[in-house]
């Protein structure tokens, strides 16, 4: 596997790709704290299965950019152990699909050791991985399982959607005393944006309003944020003003930001690349209903992946995923 593009020619020199922003964040972390090391399958010689860590082995050496065997449970568990011993490991799992081979370590150890030890132990570990569909990789390489991790107390779950978050979330994650799951959407690696020179650090506790609006709140995260923005643009053409909230952190959720937005717009559409049943979108919808029920002018709408393992065939894959047109239609249905 692995999606890799050649270093792209930037339209102008100011833009950075999501991949480059992540790499800059990693480089910073490795350079500024010698407790930090990166390990995972093909992070070194190959340069990372999605090219994120390309060049870091040459820069920091094989002790700090460690290729591992295909042993997800062992190397994630080893990351947990090293974190217990005072290191600040960044563990890369190629994709969320393979994180299931390490699920036992993540849930039964990383997320619980602090509690089980009565607060004596902490696991300051960052586990990065790719998530999401859109590249015809079929049902074992396309799922969005970050919502499962967001179910688990003891974990923090991040979903950077912009180049600024890709650039700066890692250092904030490494400063967290607890395990952080870091989800990079596979369709974003080549997305380019301009880094805001004013941003040097980011707050992991706040969702962000990516576009202001007055008629409907569209809540999205990760790979769906750009789809929500695209939908908002189209809605604007119809005279509908959509506010787009990027969750950024999937656990703990920043209710105040999205519920606050709904209180202003009185309508909400929740977009989630996970399956609808038992999803993060269900959690968000229920928080909106719990906290702003009487402010709503219409039932909350959800745009999620169809309840099917993601198929290979292009037409079916497109039909299975949230798309801007579906978000637009949902926004119309809530009567905005």
């Amino acid at each position, binding site marked *: *596997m*692995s*999606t*890799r593009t*050649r270093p792209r020619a930037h339209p102008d020199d100011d833009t950075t790709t999501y991949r480059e922003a992540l790499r800059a964040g990693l480089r910073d972390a490795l350079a500024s704290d010698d407790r930090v090391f990166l390990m995972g*399958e*093909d992070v070194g*010689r*190959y*340069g990372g*299965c999605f090219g994120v860590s390309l060049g870091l082995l040459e820069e920091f050496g094989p002790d700090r950019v460690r*290729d*591992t*065997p*295909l*042993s*997800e*449970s*062992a190397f994630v568990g080893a990351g947990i152990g090293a974190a217990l011993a005072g290191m600040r490991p960044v563990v890369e799992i190629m994709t969320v*699909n*393979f994180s299931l*081979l390490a699920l036992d370590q993540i849930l039964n150890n990383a997320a619980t050791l602090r509690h089980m030890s009565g607060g004596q132990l902490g696991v300051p570990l960052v586990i990065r991985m790719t998530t999401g569909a859109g*590249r*015809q*990789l*079929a*049902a*074992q*390489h396309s799922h969005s399982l970050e919502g499962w991790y967001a179910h688990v107390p003891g974990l923090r779950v991040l979903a950077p959607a912009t180049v600024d978050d890709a650039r700066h979330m890692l250092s904030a994650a490494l400063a967290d005393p607890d395990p952080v799951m870091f989800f990079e959407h596979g369709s974003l690696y080549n997305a380019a944006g301009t880094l805001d020179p004013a941003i040097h650090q980011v707050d992991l506790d706040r969702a962000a309003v990516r576009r202001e609006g007055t008629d409907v709140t569209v809540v999205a995260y990760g790979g769906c944020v750009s789809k929500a923005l695209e939908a908002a643009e189209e809605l604007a053409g119809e005279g509908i003003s959509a506010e787009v909230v990027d969750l950024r952190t999937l656990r703990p959720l920043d209710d105040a930001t999205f519920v606050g937005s709904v209180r202003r717009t009185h309508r909400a559409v929740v977009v989630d690349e996970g399956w*609808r*049943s038992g999803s993060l979108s269900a959690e968000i919808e229920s928080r909106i209903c719990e906290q702003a029920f009487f402010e709503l002018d219409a039932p909350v709408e959800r745009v999620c992946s*169809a*309840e*099917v*393992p993601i*198929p*290979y*065939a*292009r*037409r*079916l894959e*497109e*039909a*299975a995923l949230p798309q801007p047109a579906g978000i637009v239609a949902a926004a119309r249905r809530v009567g905005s």
Partner: protein
Amino acid sequence: MATAHGGTSAGPPKAKRPRRAHGPTTPSRTPAATHDLDLLRQMLLIRRFEERCVELYSAAAIRGFVHLYIGEEAVAVGVHQALDERDAVVSTYREHGHALARGIPPEAVMAEMYGKTTGCSHGRGGSMHLFDADRRFYGGNAIVGGGLPLAAGLALADRLRGESRVTCCFFGDGAFAEGEFHETANLAALWGLPVLFVCENNLYAMGTALAREHAQTDLAMRAASYGMAAWAVDGMDVHAVEKAARGAIESMRAGSGPHFLEMRTYRFRAHSMYDPDRYRPKDEVEGWKRHDPVTGLADGMRTAGVLDAAALDDLEHQVSAEIDHAVRAAEQAPEEPAEDLLLHVTGRPEEAEA
């Protein structure tokens, strides 16, 4: 050199002599010559099929992750000589060769690459998920190591029913590092399950060389530690592969439990279409290409006087026509309408929900 196979034989195998004495080409071929011609035809089909896939990928006719088997054809073809219809096969994402050697028609495999309804997985799987229940071909698994426990279960079912079938599981040297391999090897040996473990040791797991992922690179020796017969085979020599597989399966049918074959082979192409192949020296690749299993067999047959230029030409034409036909059929085959999206989720269609 970090890239050598474990044990004593380092680097590409030595050039080999033809293993059998064949008579001159005559209209009535000896059974051995006929068999060799069939082996050659099967390997050529896989080789040319995948070369066509590269072209189609470049033309964006097929998508997703595509992993080529080019260079490893002798393993699939050799092992399949020893399997029959009642047996089961479990494979990986690098499975075009296994699928074709199993007898899945090239049309069905090609249509799957196109994501068409006539594909062997109805377009839902793509290159990495080829299935054919009738041929007992259980995928097409793209979770490294994911097929191994399935193979143990298939074999367990046969065991419980008293069937003399075997289950053959293909996997890589990288998969050998996964817990699932070690758990399955122990289980199969413990319960005496008829699993043929075929480890395709092509020296790399993506960009990670064998010696960078295994402290002990003699994989057959390690497999033997689980209490099963295990040995290494020259995976570039289809006759050696066939002989090893026949020996293992004969003994398994007689009830001797799992066997492990470490097939020492090499992939000539990058890991997948996305891989810029930066992690291995070019001369290493060139060195292995001199042991190309397809030209190796053809040369041997020529030396033995059972293959001439005309016969090889003939074969190439047949294979190419078969692939042309598969491509044409795939292009013309229908795409599944988006309304069908929710099919095949459960056995009860009325429960599928958007």
